[in-house]
């Protein structure tokens, strides 16, 4: 990727809501999908800790932000931005607390443990009256017109997606990226080489929590209604999608999750209405098909097909193969 490639992407992203004014919400969700996939990939792709439970940070951020907006009495924008920050903070704190206990597990124990965690969070939120229990919570309304509101949220999500992408790019190219890749390739050896594996694992988990926790508050406001099991801790939608998108694009690389998120979201918006009511059945089938027949993802497939042209991309998969 050269500099002018990024410039074109930036121009397209900034002008998109004005070129396609009818699709502003969907475009905002596109950036949300990018954030979800990227933040899952920190753990699942780069570190090899496949988590089913990252969705809890998303839900925590959403609830913290909405409760803050409800109880603080601040104006809308201050309340929203502060609430999103607080949501990120809460997610980070919880990630630190549970990270130490949870990240000692490996392989399928970690995967099933996090799967359990996401269900627990939904069940507990559904029984807690302070945050609306099973009947949900409604964040305050945006003071202004709907089209203006959609543009606002579009840019909010776009900026956060940009921050996520750039900070991950910065973080992966340094020592941190090498360390978590080493953990993925062989954790015992990494530990023997003197890497503080637990510290790195908790940091990666916390980073993932930060990106999800902050954006959660924005999503709650855009959707306009927070339901414990279908919106906040939505294991069957966002929680599965983030894994699916990262794998579809190619996990363990920076561009893979982005490509996967864009392709998944566009196909979903175009074709999902055809399966009226059967979307989730199709989702299950799609997971099976992608995982069984296409586990390397689009980027991995391209890399196998055109090994020379793809060399300048983040070639972690190739490194991985050399080690085995």
């Amino acid at each position, binding site marked *: 990727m050269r500099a002018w490639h990024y410039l074109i992407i930036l121009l397209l992203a900034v002008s998109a809501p004005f070129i396609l004014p009818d699709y502003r919400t969907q475009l905002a969700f596109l950036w949300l999908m990018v954030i979800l996939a990227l933040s899952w990939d920190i753990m699942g792709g780069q570190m090899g800790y*496949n988590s*089913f439970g990252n969705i809890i940070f998303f839900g925590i951020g959403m609830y913290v932000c909405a409760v803050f907006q409800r109880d603080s009495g601040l104006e809308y924008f201050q309340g929203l931005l502060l609430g999103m920050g607080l949501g990120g903070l809460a997610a980070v704190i919880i990630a630190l607390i549970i990270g130490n*206990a*949870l990240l*000692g*597990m490996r*392989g*399928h*124990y970690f*995967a*099933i*443990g996090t*799967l*359990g*965690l996401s*269900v*627990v969070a939904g*069940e*507990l939120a*559904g*029984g807690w009256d302070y945050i609306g229990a099973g009947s949900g919570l409604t964040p305050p309304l945006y003071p202004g017109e709907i089209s203006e509101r959609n543009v606002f949220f579009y840019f909010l999500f776009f900026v956060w997606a940009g921050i996520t992408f750039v900070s991950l790019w910065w973080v992966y190219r340094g020592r941190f990226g090498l360390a978590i890749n080493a953990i993925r390739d062989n954790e015992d050896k990494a530990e023997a080489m003197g890497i503080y594996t637990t510290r790195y694992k908790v940091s990666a988990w916390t980073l993932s929590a930060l990106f999800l926790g902050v954006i959660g508050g924005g999503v709650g406001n855009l959707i306009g209604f927070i339901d414990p099991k279908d919106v906040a801790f939505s294991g*069957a939608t966002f929680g*599965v999608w983030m*894994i699916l998108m990262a*794998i579809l694009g190619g996990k363990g690389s920076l561009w893979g999750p982005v490509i996967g998120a864009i392709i998944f979201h566009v196909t979903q918006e175009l074709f999902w209405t055809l399966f009226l*009511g*059967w979307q*989730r*059945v199709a*989702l*299950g*089938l*799609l*997971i*099976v098909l992608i*995982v*069984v027949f296409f*586990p390397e993802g689009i980027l991995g497939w391209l890399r196998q097909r055109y090994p020379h042209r793809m060399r300048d991309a983040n070639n972690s998969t190739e490194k991985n193969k050399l080690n085995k």
Partner: protein
Amino acid sequence: MLDNLAILFNTPVLIVDLMINGMLIGAIFILAAYGMALVWGVMNIINVSQGEYVMLGGYITLVVVKLGLHPLLGIPIAAIALYFIGWLMYRSIIYRVVDRDVFISLLATFGISIFLAQLTNQLFGADVQTIDTKLGSWSFMNSMVSLAVIKVIAFFLALAFGFALWVFLKKSRTGQAIRATSQNARAARILGIDTHRIYTITYSLSAALCGAAGSLVVMAWAVHPYIGLPYTIRSFMVVIVAGLGNLPGVIVAGLGLGAAENFAGFILGTEFQIAFVFLLMIFVLIWRNRRLRRRRKYLK
């Protein structure tokens, strides 16, 4: 919550009632856990769709009853139907992921689990359904302790199925081949065992066990399309507490889990029962991890 505890302390009979009813459902967990342990031990796959087979067994029994047959006939029919569903799943999907990375098989079975749960939801609706077997119930101690006859039947049937599986694995030719494959698949292949066939039988058999369990669940309790995941988690928990291949351990852990869950449901309220199951699983995992780490320290 404290009120409920007080009630419990003032009426010890209630403790007996909760304990017995909890252990009765524990037998179902044992059956589902056998299914999970079988696939885990032989194929090294954690089958997340295990609970969905329990759920499907329940719905097949519902269909059998709607056709006008006796509900108890639903048990063999569900088991046979699930044997074929398991066979189909293995031949279409699972055999492609047997030898691959753990996460691929985990995610593939997770996809199957979503697919089956949502398919059932589309076909049968999201309502909670149950079957009245009209077998009545017994009561003891001034009718403070009541036992539904079907639950007692379910308990003994579940134990009988577990025993039959154990005998099958120990004595029959196929059972010996399954055990050989689980010890070392490569060596088994060299000695002339068709491991592909053994995997097929193992997977189908585990689905059939779960189908029988589901059939008992719908008669003694109730089913709905999303009941699967809690059953998967419960059997996972029972297997890791007992350890792979420890049959007496599975029985004790299953009965204990049933009783614990029933007490928790009473004390915390039934809306937190599922949360309790999942939290307990997380604590079991953490506890297991601590123990492993301590053992590793001694090795150093």
